[in-house]
């Protein structure tokens, strides 16, 4: 355990000492938030208004809280997976510089080294994503706060769970990378594509049924649904004071607060189950890859 603690401390310190990488990883979610608000804010406001029954209107605070919640959930859904790819750069750099050889010839289990990378990436990503989440909460508090304490707690839990998912996914991918260019390319691809694949950039209802089915098969999507639920349900409940139940149901469907897979509605516990299952499976794959790597050593 002591060795693992030192390995995590070493990896975290290396990440935070590299000001360029740290700054980029830290600033990226905030840049994304600003971009969302500036360029997509109006689109979502218009979508919201178009989803309401004719003649119905929401208060500014509820409107802001609803759209703000959508933007923040999109941002967190993306960042919790893209940030771990940046944080996992330490693992790839150790391979590129050959420092991994020095770590491997120490009397330390390969599993401890692998766990050290996994946990340090999770810690770094969690710090950055929770900071982004707190900035998002400040933004929501300014434009229209409709979150209950349990929503806040569950949102933080979702972030933690998604970070574990993102860390496990990036650990599996980074296991195969052996060059700086490789990790840079993968990070760029993941940053560009993942937002679409997890349904963060556009509500699922906007996609064709084929794409929707594909997206629903990817576990990251369930993280987006969880965040949507915990960041937007409060505003939806406030909207229920002025809108009929059917309109609220339509609104929840249009903005991915509820979704169905194979004709069955995906409940919040089911989404947690899928995401937790995905985390466990990916960690299992990572452990298997590390065990395979270990078998090459004597």
């Amino acid at each position, binding site marked *: 355990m002591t*060795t693992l603690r*030192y*390995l995590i401390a*070493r990896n975290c310190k290396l990440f935070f000492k590299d000001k360029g990488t740290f700054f980029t990883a830290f600033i990226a979610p905030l840049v994304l938030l600003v971009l969302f608000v500036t360029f997509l804010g109006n689109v979502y406001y218009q979508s919201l208004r178009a989803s309401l029954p004719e003649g119905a209107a929401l208060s500014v605070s509820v409107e802001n809280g609803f759209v703000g919640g959508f933007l923040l959930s999109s941002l967190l859904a993306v960042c919790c997976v893209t940030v771990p790819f940046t944080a996992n750069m330490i693992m790839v750099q150790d391979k590129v*510089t050959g420092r991994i050889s*020095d770590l491997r010839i120490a*009397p330390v289990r390969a599993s401890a080294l692998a766990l050290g990378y996994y946990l340090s990436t999770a810690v770094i990503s969690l710090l950055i994503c929770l900071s982004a989440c707190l900035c998002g909460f400040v933004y929501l508090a300014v434009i229209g706060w409709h979150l209950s304490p349990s929503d806040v707690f569950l949102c933080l839990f979702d972030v933690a769970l998604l970070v574990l998912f993102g860390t496990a996914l990036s650990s599996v991918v980074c296991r195969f990378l052996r060059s700086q260019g490789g990790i840079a390319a993968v990070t760029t691809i993941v940053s560009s594509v993942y937002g679409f694949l997890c349904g963060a950039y556009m509500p699922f209802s906007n996609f064709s049924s084929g794409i929707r089915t594909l997206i629903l098969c990817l576990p990251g999507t369930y993280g987006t649904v969880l965040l949507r639920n915990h960041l937007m349900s409060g505003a939806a409940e406030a909207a229920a004071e002025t809108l009929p139940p059917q309109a609220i149901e339509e609104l929840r469907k249009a903005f991915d607060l509820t979704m169905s897979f194979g004709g069955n509605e995906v409940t919040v516990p089911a989404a947690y189950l899928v995401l937790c299952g995905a985390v466990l499976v990916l960690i299992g794959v990572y452990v298997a890859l590390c065990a395979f790597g270990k078998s090459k*050593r*004597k």
Partner: protein
Amino acid sequence: MKNVIEIVNLKKSYGEIKAVDDVSFSVAEGAFFAFLGVNGAGKSTTISILCGDQPRDGGEVRVDGLDLDGNADEVRRRLGVVYQNCALDQPLSVRDNLKYRAALYGITGKAFEKRLAELTELFGLQDLLRRPVGKLSGGQRRRIDIARAVIHEPKILVLDEPTTGLDPQTRKTVWGVVEQLRKAQGLTVFLTTHYMEEAADADEVVILDAGKIKAQATPLELKNRYTGDFITFYDLTDDEARSLGMPYERVSGAVRVAVKNTGEATELVRNYPALFRDYEITKGKMDDVFLAVTGKKCGGEV
């Protein structure tokens, strides 16, 4: 003296290429052992296998009496490795680098502070401890790299081409530190290099070529076996050189004549006393030995 490394019939192939082909050798405790070979000769593969970082196809490896199979961790505790490329974390301070590497060997807290104090004294690190490794000079960085390799007090210090790409001053620093360690701690030093002259001070030299051992002896024995002596004349004209009736070559203006041994050199002095105005007689160099043994010059084929 007891052997601290014993390698018997070691084999390792990558596909069709035999990187290490039935290699056997042993290293005595406290010795300075040199493993010579051009790039691709199989030196680093042997080191990797010795450290348990790569599996082998066949053969036995014993370190300090321990079989590598089943004792890999114990074997690793007995080895400290300095790589060709610095294995330190550049953004971290010297202290942090040593702290995190020591922790891999279970050295933490007071035990680490005690060891750090010893190494600070031995390597003169007092003013460097707080500085990031990336801001240090090449020589300072190499010193820290060696300190990292011996942080857990290994019995054997493996130097895997430690001076490749370094300037002469830094090379001198590296060898100064290694010598200091040998004197202070009685370390066994296992050097791999393709700089032939670095092996000249070794107690035993193994010349490896294409994965096979081509020669194994002390540097003096190798020189006596594979090279003759050389007479260098510093003020000889070509006519005078030709009058010796022996093949010669011009090296930096001087005339260099190869003779079988010191006896033949003495004979020439007797026969041509007038030509021996400004001269020296030297033994062959390790470069000459390597050339004679492998037909290659360090760095490539002849």
